[in-house]
């Protein structure tokens, strides 16, 4: 038995919708709709921002930071959807930052406790160390982060967004930065902060790539939908 009783109608229904579909797909295959939060450690500050996959930032909405379930800080995002607050003094657990747009979009991200520990100042100890910053997460830092004046070039951009460090010298390895004062070896804390500053754009990019929609996924989804329809039709056509 013929699968279509009405040969004209489906085709005509198809035409405008397919045009709409093609226009949308070709317009922006990478646009999407979901709220994500990006956060990173930046010196003694935690900064980050919420973003909608495919564009847009949650401006002037509430954010809440919690450590181990206990409220830690809260505020409203700026015009770029960004937030910023100091690292809490005793790091007692994972840090969770939640952005709520108050109209149904809620997203959160978690910074593991191990990532926060290096930023915590261990007062008193000032042991300059020249070791490479490989085991960055294990060693307790030596100086309080707020006391050190000299920063690596572009280490802390005034605004956390689109950080400058990648711009001037993307290829230069940070640990051997020549701008360091020649008198002292860089301390572990300084190295850690420099590495964190250099790695931040990479983390940011990773987060965005992770959340990115891919055209292949879109095509896969559409193909699945039509495949399901085809199987249903086939199953029905087998019925007498």
């Amino acid at each position, binding site marked *: 038995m013929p*699968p*279509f*009783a*009405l040969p*004209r*109608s*489906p085709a*005509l*229904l*198809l035409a*405008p*919708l*397919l045009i*709409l*579909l093609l226009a*949308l*797909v070709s*317009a*922006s295959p990478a*646009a*999407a*709709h*979901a*709220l994500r939060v990006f956060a990173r450690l930046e010196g003694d500050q935690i900064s980050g921002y919420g973003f*909608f*996959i*495919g*564009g*847009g*930032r*949650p*401006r*002037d*909405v509430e954010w809440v930071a919690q450590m181990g379930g206990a409220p830690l800080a809260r505020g409203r995002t700026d015009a770029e959807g960004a937030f910023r607050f100091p690292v809490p003094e005793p790091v007692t657990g994972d840090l969770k930052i939640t952005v*709520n*747009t*108050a*109209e*149904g*979009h*809620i*997203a959160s991200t978690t910074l593991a406790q191990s990532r926060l520990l290096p930023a915590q100042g261990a007062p008193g100890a000032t042991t300059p160390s020249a070791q490479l910053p490989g085991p960055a997460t294990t060693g307790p830092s030596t100086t309080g982060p707020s006391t050190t004046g000299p920063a690596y070039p572009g280490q802390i951009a005034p605004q956390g967004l689109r950080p400058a460090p990648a711009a001037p010298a993307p290829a230069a390895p940070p640990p051997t930065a020549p701008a360091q004062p020649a008198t002292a070896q860089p301390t572990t804390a300084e190295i850690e902060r420099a590495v964190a500053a250099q790695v931040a754009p990479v983390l940011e990019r990773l987060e965005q790539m992770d*959340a990115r*929609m891919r055209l292949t*996924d*879109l095509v*896969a*989804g*559409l193909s*699945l*939908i*039509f495949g*399901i*329809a085809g199987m*249903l*039709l086939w199953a*029905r*056509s087998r019925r007498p």
Partner: protein
Amino acid sequence: MAHIPDGVLSLPVLLGGGALAAAGVGLGLRALDDRAIPRVALLSAVFFATSLLSIPVGPSSVHLLLGGLMGVLLGVGIFPAVLVALALQAVLFGFGGLTTLGVNTVNIALPGAVVGLALGPLIRRQTRPGRAGALAGAGAAAAVFGTGALVAGALWLSAPEYTPVARVLLVTYLPLALVEAAVTAIVVGFLTRVEPAALAPALKMRET
């Protein structure tokens, strides 16, 4: 907005949404015939793709829902269409979530189905494309606000601290409703002009 993620809603809301969605999908599947299957699949594909295209509005970001259009064209067939598309969005793109699949399906499909059942017969009786389009557009706007209300209700029932603020909802849903109305009016007007029979979800409609 319509994609509520995992981990926000409470269990009773999830179960209730799941039960409602199952009932709707059951109704929709019973209505499927050889003519309806490609229609459901086509609109499901359109919904799947359009939900991925979002535009920043105010503090948020919105995308077309097409609930009104699907409701008019599919009737209760909107439930399986939305369910399949949402499931694929959750799996492929991480929008919404698998546990919230039922609630999200109801939030989008139920207002559309209601609009389709309430306004559909009236729209199909119109002979002037403009009038049919205007009616469908009004229905589409109503479906958008219905979805907004259901999303707000689901959040309010589960986590009062996440309840959307009415003012923010209005700011983001009003432009969406207008755009949605325009798109729906254009499509329905076009179909009324060239192929009115395509507007009927099923051929053997009681009302036509």
